[in-house]
């Protein structure tokens, strides 16, 4: 275990425990205000924990358990942070920005610059060394930011939505770069984009309200969402309830029929996911043959790729533009949403 983390910050309602293995890249996901920034701050040494302890390799980052009170200063932690914006030092050249880490930890100017050149080459930015940060595009700056963070030779790399401030055109190239440099590196990646999690991370931690709500291999977490937030990321409808004879009985009493992946005891809390493209919308009550149907209020209607997504308070449906025009639904209207008995997949929570 490289990182062993347990911390509580009362003022922010934050209480989290997890571990990271050496070389593992973990995506941290959660709605805004879930505590992702607090987590990064605790690891980088910018936020203090009320309780808990964290060890990285054989170094104590902080220890606020009963009886002991240790805290390692940010610059001694071996934890580098790459934020949304590259935050390159505007008064230093690109090369000296990358050389900053080695230079600060005792390397001579020449050694530091040699390391910096190496890392600039690694991120395909060797030709930018002489430039000022102000003369870089967003994508170039973030590349240099990656090189600067890695040049510091961190035991743990923290990435705080590194792709979110980039143009759509620049993100794929940087994602490929990150995939390459994160391959055997211990890193925590905060992201809102399921694609980043799938491409870059081995594991996903889902945080909501300062607590861990899911933790597992990326594909597994998205295939079996446990919360509405993850289901939303995965683009799925999620209905939770308890196992009934042929499906689940949802929390509000709605009986949903769906096949289960594995045997789940009756009464155990379970979930069913169904793709929005398999949900149909109509003004007339569907017949029994239609399977599961629910009468709900429309929250919004928005184009999404080739189809139109109609979102209700429980289910969302993707319909063709022609069908959407025929239905003529607007937020606040009500309609029937239905999916067949074999459209969903059930699993235990």
């Amino acid at each position: 275990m490289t990182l062993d983390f347990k911390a509580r910050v009362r003022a922010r309602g934050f209480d989290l425990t997890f571990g990271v293995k050496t070389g593992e890249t973990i995506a941290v996901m959660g709605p805004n205000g879930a505590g992702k920034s607090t987590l990064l701050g605790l690891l980088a040494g910018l936020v203090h924990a009320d309780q808990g302890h964290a060890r990285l390799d054989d170094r104590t980052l902080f220890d606020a358990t009963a009886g002991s009170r240790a805290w390692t200063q940010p610059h001694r932690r071996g934890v580098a942070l790459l934020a949304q914006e590259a935050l390159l030092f505007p008064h230093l050249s690109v090369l000296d920005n990358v050389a900053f880490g080695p230079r600060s930890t005792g390397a001579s100017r020449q050694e530091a610059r040699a390391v910096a050149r190496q890392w600039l080459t690694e991120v395909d930015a060797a030709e930018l060394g002489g430039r000022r940060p102000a003369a870089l595009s967003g994508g170039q700056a973030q590349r240099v930011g990656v090189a600067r963070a890695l040049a510091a030779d961190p035991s743990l790399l923290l990435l705080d939505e590194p792709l979110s401030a980039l143009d759509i055109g620049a993100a794929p190239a940087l994602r490929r770069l990150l995939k390459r440099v994160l391959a055997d590196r211990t890193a925590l990646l905060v992201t809102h984009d399921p694609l980043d999690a799938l491409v870059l991370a081995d594991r996903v931690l889902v945080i909501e309200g300062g607590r861990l709500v899911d933790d597992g291999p990326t594909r597994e977490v998205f295939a079996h969402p446990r919360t509405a937030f993850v289901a939303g990321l995965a683009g799925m409808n999620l209905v939770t309830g308890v196992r009934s004879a042929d499906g689940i009985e949802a929390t509000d009493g709605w009986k949903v029929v769906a096949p289960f992946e594995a045997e789940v005891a009756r009464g155990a809390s379970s979930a069913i996911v169904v793709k929005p493209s398999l949900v149909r919308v109509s003004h007339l009550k569907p017949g029994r043959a239609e399977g599961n149907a629910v009468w709900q209020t429309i929250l919004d209607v928005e184009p999404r790729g080739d189809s139109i997504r109609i979102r209700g308070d429980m289910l969302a449906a993707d319909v063709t533009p022609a069908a959407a025009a025929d239905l003529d639904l607007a937020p606040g209207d009500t309609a029937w949403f239905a999916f067949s008995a074999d459209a969903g997949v059930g699993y235990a929570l």
Partner: protein
Amino acid sequence: MDQNRRMTRTRAHLAGVPRWVAVLAGVGAAFVLLPLVAIVSRVNWVDFVPLITSDSSVAALLLSLRTSLAATALCVVFGVPIAIVLARATFPGQRIARSLVLLPLVLPPVVGGIALLYTFGRRGLLSSTFQFLGIDIAFSTTAVILAQTFVAIPFLILSLEGAIRTAGARYEAVAATLGAAPTTVLRRVTLPLLLPALVSGAILSFARALGEFGATLTFAGSLQGTTRTLPLEIYLQLETDPDTAVALSLVLVAVAVFVVGLAYRNGSVPSGPSGADR
């Protein structure tokens, strides 16, 4: 679009400023500028050079420049740490400390001089310390420098503290996670980023030190060559030789205008580099 371009091309327009505001602004500006015109109009240009190169004038001018530079250096040495602590650290009584540090800004300089006299003077608070060290501060050039530092340091602190707050601590946080110890961060990140604000703050402090009169007279007295700075010399000459007083005043005005010009060219409105690109 087109209309905007046409409007910027016209030479002067009020851009929505009510006319009466512009009129009041004009009156206010005249109130500030007219006295300068009055000084220039009263200058005896025939004897101008001899007047400002007399022994006492040159002595006063050189003393003023020397002491003001020394005071500016002291302002930087102590003002920068004060600004950093006020802007970044949190400690009990911070707001009170902040107001007190800026007190010299609103205190009548004479009162400042009296305060200094009762601190560093022969029977002052620290007199025994300085007597022990064999130093007598009051009525010496050192006293002039202390008086100037006392009144000028708030300018540096204000200018710098604002810039530090605007710049935020994000660059510093990144530098720390890259392995830089606090002193390294200060030297290689904070101070370089604050340089424009530091320079303009130092220039303003210098200007204030140069113009210092009340605290100097009270605390340091008026000995030619030792404590009689240019403002003191001007005040003294006004009684006996108004022509010299006016000529020296013009010199001081010229220096002040030059210094303020420098500060503004440097971007005296403190906006840290990150403040601009945010």
